[in-house]
């Protein structure tokens, strides 16, 4: 299976994985082929990887199946990993009309202030609220922007992680 991967440094990789017996795989990357042995240690994220004899303790966490955090030898890499179908679907979605968006709390905490009201038009990445946790203030921003359809919280309110804060409708097309 072919995979397209992108790291937080902006580098892009194209790999082809073929499964062999049990936990063995062969990886095609560029013009190289690497033999891999890969096991799930504890079903909690720890894995043991051996690539052409080089051994690594790898830890993997996923926020969803395409977004992975991979820790190798103490360094953490944020990776978007897509197969061919997902990459194609992504390409189609990015060309389509803007989508509606729900801005969620990035962590549990208290809403210190709200920067928007219903009807406001937001640019992509515009701040919508300030969230406080552990005595630190964190700005919550929208991703795609749009028109504020509904404000679901009030200043001073406690929120859970991933709690919806603001509903946005797609910005009107020019």
């Amino acid at each position, binding site marked *: *299976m072919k*995979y397209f*991967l992108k*790291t*937080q*440094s902006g*580098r892009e*990789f194209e*790999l082809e*994985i073929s*499964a062999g017996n049990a936990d063995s*795989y062969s*990886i095609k*990357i560029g013009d190289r082929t*690497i033999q*891999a042995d*890969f096991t*799930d240690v*504890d079903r*909690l*994220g*720890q*894995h043991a*990887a051996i*690539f052409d004899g*080089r051994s*690594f*303790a*790898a*830890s*993997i*966490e996923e926020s969803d*199946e395409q977004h*992975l955090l*991979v*820790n*190798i*030898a*103490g*360094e*953490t*890499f*944020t*990776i978007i*990993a897509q*197969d061919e179908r997902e990459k194609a679907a992504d390409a189609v979605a990015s060309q389509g009309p803007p989508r509606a968006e729900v801005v969620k709390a990035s*962590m*549990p*905490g*208290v809403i210190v202030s709200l920067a928007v009201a219903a009807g406001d038009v937001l640019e992509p990445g515009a701040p919508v609220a300030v969230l*406080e*946790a*552990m*005595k*630190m203030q*964190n700005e919550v921003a929208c991703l795609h922007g749009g028109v504020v359809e509904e404000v679901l919280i009030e200043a001073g309110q406690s929120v859970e*992680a991933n709690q919806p804060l603001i509903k946005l409708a797609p910005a009107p097309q020019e």
Partner: protein
Amino acid sequence: MTLSPDFPIKKVLIANRGEIAVRILRSCRDLGIDTVAVYSDADRNALHVRFANEAFPLGGNTPAESYLRGDAILAIAKQCGADAIHPGFGFLSENGAFAEAVEAAGLRFIGPSSHAMAVMGDKLASRKAMVAADVPVVPGGTDAVKDAAAAAEAAEEIGYPVMLKASAGGGGKGIRVVENPEEIETAFTTASGEAQNAFGDGRMYVEKYLVEPRHIEIQVLGDKHGNVLHFGERECSLQRRHQKLIEEAPSPVIDEATRQRMGSAAVAAAKAVDYVSAGTVEFLWSKGEFYFLEMNTRIQVEHGITEEVYGVDLITQMIRVAGDETIEDCVGLIPRGHAIEVRLNAEDPENNFLPSLGTIRNLRWPGGPGVRIDSSVYRGMDVTPYYDSMLAKLIAYGRDREQARRRMLRILQELHVGGVKTSAGVALQLLQTKGFREGNYDTGFLERYMEDQDAREVARDLPDDLEEIAVMVAAIYRQRAGARRHIKPTADGHATNSWVAQARREQHGGQVR
């Protein structure tokens, strides 16, 4: 260390939580002293609760609802028959009124007197006390000057370079660094004019400008018999917005003669307030000179590295001192080897070091020679928004600095914390920088490192192709997840695949087990 049978403290209440509560509890248990934990609702499952002999709830979640409730904590201490209270750091540790209330109730407060806290907690009062005790303070900055001539006179007395600071100050306006006497008149006129425009007040302060300042602090310990000793320095310059990330002892820039000079100054500072118990005198160090910054009248987070190089247990010494013992057994201790501490915080360095909350889903601790982990973390622990973000202190000890550095690299590679983001990754990077390797860093180093990725000078100890390795790991992980979706175990435990399931669905009219 063993205590005499008539040692007056048999039971200690620990008025704190997290790593430091566990740390204090461990020394108590090693001494054969019973421990009492108090806890908030959020901390019901915490290690400090589980490891204590007795535990009592404070209720609530926020510090104000729980660990700051001095009256409630004192009531519990009296009720359970504790002889002493150890406040740890933060919370009530530098609250003079609480210390007095504890003593007034007939219990011992394991810490300094409220008088020492009051003097050292006040910027002006502590500066005055230090000047009287001949402890060097940052020259200047006490009286405003009104014209260029007065500024030049003050600068001559202080010594160049100096900093001109607007008396009304703020937002970087009205600030000038002046390198030599020729520049001072122009600098005063422009800076004062700027301040006049911005704040309507043109008066300026003249202060010594510290070039490449380092934060170096001296550990002190006093007893009730008038003895005060110092335990050398800790180098704490790797910090960001006054949050320290990596500390080491000894400092790479302090030689034995300077250590003795700084140590004597710290002892003089402590004696000026009749200091009892463990405390830390913080100095700013610049180009071989050092200046008093403040004194922290409590045990400090990074005390562990001093313990490693001096072979002393500072928590034990605090308890002994509170029980009227002397510190004479600490006389003549000398530093051996090198210790480095990394603070493992639940925070996201890539996102401005903001707290990273969640559940610790996975945990793999390092071990082996020269490794010390002071922690309160366990698998399944929720990292809540109520308290500070420190999860653990990782301490590497080595015969020399390079061995300690290499051990810390190993510690950070063996470590794995799953479920929250931590400061471990950025610490691992910093340990490989040219600046850290050479011991050449100041208090601005971490900030510059985070902000200017291009200027990072790193000589890596780790392989260069880890990104590619991580990408291969991610691809195989996805491949396996995809394979699992096609072969799911059925209720009777037999693996099946989606083709078989589809065939069954067709056979049984949509009924799939």
